[in-house]
């Protein structure tokens, strides 16, 4: 018997089932068809303004910085300001996301690089798929638009979030994911990012910038 069959046989023997029971199969099929939501904390809920306020509070609590911009067009200027203030070169790596590529980076004195990061970039800009107010988290999907290496290799990660994509909880993000991509369809990677990288492995002393970015700057665009 193959290892696989043996494992299944042993599970079924222990559970006292055959695996063919229609009731059990029905229960499992129903659960996968209609996902069941657990208790949703009240913290992330409320009006769009309340969600925005909670998101900012929670993101700052985990050491991210947040700026709200009236228009997406203001993103390059804000990125340039942030980099200048941090004494960083005015160069960022971005993916093929049109929400980023259509911006006038040059006009803000910036240069951009495209494609995946090989580890030499100081700064990168990604566009979030969604944000979660409850925990100040950002969801970034992998692919040509937002290469996954941009989330981890550069020291400074800047993520743009459209206010319309801010939700109260993760469950609402999954609903959007199923709407946008189709049920059961996933990109290679979904990153849920909550603050910059950190470690407390040495004497439980919390330090930012373990292996991933040392700093996370979030730009929320209102238009």
């Amino acid at each position, binding site marked *: 018997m*193959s*290892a696989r069959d043996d494992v299944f046989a042993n599970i079924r023997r222990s559970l006292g089932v055959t695996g063919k029971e229609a009731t059990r199969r029905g229960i499992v099929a129903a659960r996968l068809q209609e996902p069941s939501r657990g*208790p949703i904390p009240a913290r992330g809920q409320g009006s769009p303004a309340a969600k925005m306020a909670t998101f900012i509070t929670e993101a700052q609590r985990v050491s991210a910085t947040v700026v709200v911009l009236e228009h997406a067009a203001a993103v390059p200027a804000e990125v340039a300001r942030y980099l200048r203030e941090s004494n960083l070169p005015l160069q960022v790596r971005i993916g093929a996301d049109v929400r980023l590529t259509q911006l006038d980076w040059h006009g803000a004195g910036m240069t951009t690089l495209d494609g995946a990061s090989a580890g030499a970039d100081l700064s990168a800009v990604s566009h979030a798929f969604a944000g979660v107010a409850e925990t100040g988290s950002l969801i970034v999907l*992998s692919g040509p638009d937002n290469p996954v290496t941009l989330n981890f290799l550069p020291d400074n990660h800047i993520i743009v979030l459209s206010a319309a994509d801010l939700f109260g909880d993760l469950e609402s993000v999954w609903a959007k994911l199923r709407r946008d991509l189709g049920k059961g369809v*996933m990109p290679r990677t979904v990153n849920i990012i909550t603050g910059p990288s950190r*470690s*407390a*492995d*040495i*004497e439980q002393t919390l330090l930012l910038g373990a292996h991933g970015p040392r700093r996370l700057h979030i730009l929320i665009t209102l238009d």
Partner: protein
Amino acid sequence: MSLHPTTPEFKQNAHVALHDAELQKALGHVQGGFIYKRQSAVDRLPEFEVLRDSARDLKDHVLAHLDLYLEMYEARVRASGGHIHFARNANEANKIIVDICKAHDAKTVTKGKSMVSEEIGLNDAIEAAGMKAVETDLGEYIIQLRHETPSHIIAPAVHLTKEQVEREFRREHTHLPKDRDLSQPVQLLTEARGVLREKFLAADVGITGANFLIAETGTSIIVTNEGNGDLTQSLPKVHVVIASIEKIVPTLEDASLLMRVLARSATGQDMSVYTTLSTGPRRAEDPDGPAHYHVVLVDNGRSSMLGGEFEDMLRCIRCGACMNHCPVYHAVGGHAYGWVYPGPMGAVLTPSLIGVDKGGHLPNASTFCGRCESVCPVKIPLPKLMRHWREREFERHLTPAVQRFGLGVWAYFARRPALYRPLTSLAMKALSLLAGEKGRFAKLPLASGWTQYRDLPAPSGQTFQSQWRARQKERSR
């Protein structure tokens, strides 16, 4: 199993640990590092208790339907272009992974933190096959340099002081100038980050564990703070996931529920920094990510725990809250437990996985204070499960002879009140007289297990029952 357990020598291990000054200093960080942070995170979330109940119910539901969810998961992994392998035991799992590495001509293999890989001794297997395995979690990296196993399931190097880490780095990182200051954790972190960055970029295969597997989508999830897991799984051309079979959850929503209790219970964070969902290999149009994706599902004794009195243990989501709150763990640290899983969860799981004849000390070395159960995010009745192990030992006559004899003598009299009362009455009078004015014993034959460490308060004299009866007689007169 390649990791040789020293669990039978638990008492001796504990003795050494209690006299290890550096270890005792390091263990002091558990309190401030975990307990207060967890409490404040819980205090900030009014729904926490309801979430614990839901998390328990979810895991119970999964275990009752584990075969079906596994089938579903397996199909989804294949559909997304991934490979899935089943391993009955440690040897099979190691062989599968080593073969994958060899097939891709791997020289360097990076690894994210994975307790099941510790359980099967994966690093040794990789090294034995002539490849270099590099742990990338900071704590894991440190203990790998020291050729140690983790002493905690989420803080592998919690048993070390920063001075010990500095000594280790100076020994291993030969490029380090002598005058480079490494006295602070931040300097140690910077040093490790630099060294490991090169390893990430050079690796041929990246191995991660999984906190959850999603049946709905064939997705594996890792939860980390450092980002090491993401660099491990995104840069090499091959990503291998190793996970035990009980990590399955039905849907994305179910994983979200468990995330809400996991980080709070573990580190007191509302959410860990990076929660990463991986499904299959990189898509044709993707500019990065691994070209190959393998999942190795390990049973290693778990399927036999289903449906039995230790099934509750399979709810465990490896947060470490039980050990963070355990007075015994605080006293002796994780290595004393002698195998991979320390603390209360280890006290239940270890005998299941290596046998109660070897792991029998662990479920006995508990005061049953119940603090572990009170913080467990999936409400595993840990003291009750430890008691079940004690019952198994008693039934199989594995309980130490002296203890069994003592219990037998005591039980004989406890079952016979008519004998017990006059006898204890006499004994207590005698003991009281023997203690005299002192009111306590510094030494007493047959009680040296007690008096070696503390005085034994002496009985007052007459027993309560005899005094009470005398008083009742007096009253009714």
